[in-house]
């Protein structure tokens, strides 16, 4: 039996709508976000200009001039909302989703890169090796890209190593730094100020403007980290 996802649609700005699917981080809620994201992306509606998936919601940005031509009465916002509702009716749990990409990402957890690892180990009463093991054990989901081009928010990090952001952010976190913030893990695609707890660094290029797909990660990817030595890092 077809099941429509539970959702609500409301205005986000005067030219965008927000489709909400839940209020907490969960794989189940995120599957709903991804389903609708993929469907709208594939349907290539000429008046939808951007889609912004996140943990539990999807932003839909539309062109006001083009959307004004949609059928129906009332505000353009309500016309787009009605159109989205129609599309959402066709999004069922049975509908085939694109194959998830599984990405393996090398991380060097050497002390020269793992700026906060020792502090974290102390706080959690674990050894750095324990933390590395726990970090690498899980298959993470990419929930969204945001904050910087190519910055992927991944979760859900094991409780034993989940930790709040630093109380004082760094003015410069080096590119490739792998960090933890709350129950999320992520990698800085470029040098940037930042407050995540840094436990390693990857030699992988996460953002390349010249590539066909400039961002290494996309929402919906599955990610597994594996440790490499400093030597392997330098020769990647």
């Amino acid at each position, binding site marked *: 039996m077809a099941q429509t996802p539970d959702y609500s649609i409301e205005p986000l*700005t*005067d*030219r965008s709508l927000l489709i909400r699917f839940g209020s907490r981080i969960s794989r189940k809620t995120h599957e709903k976000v991804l389903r609708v994201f993929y469907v709208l992306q594939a349907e290539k509606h000429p008046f939808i200009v951007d889609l*912004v998936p*996140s943990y539990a919601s999807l932003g839909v940005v539309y062109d006001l001039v083009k959307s004004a031509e949609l059928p129906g009465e009332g505000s353009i916002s309500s016309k787009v909302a009605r159109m989205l509702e129609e599309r959402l009716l066709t999004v069922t749990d049975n509908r085939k989703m694109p194959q998830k990409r599984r990405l393996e990402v090398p991380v060097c957890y050497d002390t020269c890169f793992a700026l906060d690892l020792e502090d974290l180990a102390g706080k959690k009463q674990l050894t750095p090796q324990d933390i590395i093991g726990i970090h690498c054990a899980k298959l993470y989901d990419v929930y969204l890209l945001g904050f910087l081009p190519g910055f992927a928010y991944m979760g859900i990090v094991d409780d034993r190593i989940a930790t709040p952001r630093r109380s004082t952010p760094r003015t410069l976190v080096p590119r490739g730094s792998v960090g933890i913030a709350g129950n999320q893990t992520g990698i800085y695609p470029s040098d940037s100020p930042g407050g995540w707890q840094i436990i390693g660094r990857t030699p992988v290029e996460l953002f390349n403007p010249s590539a066909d797909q*400039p961002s290494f990660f996309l929402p919906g990817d599955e990610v597994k980290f594996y440790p490499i030595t400093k030597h392997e890092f330098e020769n990647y």
Partner: protein
Amino acid sequence: MSLRIIKSGILDTVQDGGRQGYAHMGIPPSGAMDPFSASLANAILGKELTDPVIEIHFPAPVIEVTEPCVLSVTGADFSATINGLSLPLCQPALVTAGGLVEFKKPVSGARGYIGVYPGLKLEAWLNSYSTNLQAKAGGWEGQALRNGDSIQLERYTGTDRVFKLLPWNSRQQLIKDRIRIVKGPEWDLLDENMQQHFLNDRYTIGRLSNRMGFRLKGTPLIASSTEEMLSSAVLAGTIQLLPDGDPVVLMADHPTTGGYPRIASVIGADLGLLAQLIPGSALQFSIVDLEQAEQLFLSQNRYLEELKALSDAEMRLFLKG
């Protein structure tokens, strides 16, 4: 055939109508801070509203034109001159080879736009000519213009080669300090008292305001819930409430998602007005409903398209000589 930067200004970047379609990769649209004035710079030349223009601040650049082209200046009034002669806002001028474009002093506004006919010759990145300073891509090599940079121009085909102001112009938007907003998804996190403060108080644009966002100083606003919000979509114009009680209006180079309550958003038609207010300026918000906001934007767009059509006709006549 180029515009040569003799002396760069404090921040000169190529911008256009914005880079749409990549927010899911964390790539925001960037684009002109004042979309209306940028479109106006193109419309008065008969060009597509979203064509690339040069966004300037004050101190502004000194530019040498090495081959003829027609220029327009809109947005902020920085007292533009060509070879020392005054160039009025929103009026096309035929500039000959060797022409020197300067901006003598800031009179009003924060961001100016230079439109160029026939056009700038640039490579698009992800279907847009806007500069993404964080990604270091798009526009002019992903960065602000520097001394010695030379932007190629498309070839001007008119026969007239004498500097002159062309015989048509348009009006500029007035600088206004009343900025219209619509409610945001987290508007109700403000109780009625706080909502009234937000709509009645005067805010000052903080020093730390830039292309990413404008921090507003005034009576701190307190949300009724301090529960952390999951990161969710934000756009240029979105007004976030920071934990210290300051509202922040996200602007062109905003991050694509944010975790702070979105209490309201500046309507598209007024984004440009906000962008023209310099740090230290005061402003006040006034609330409109969605339909009004939409109609205001559409009527602005109609005006620009009509101006473009008229200017295009004038330009063709002029080029025939």
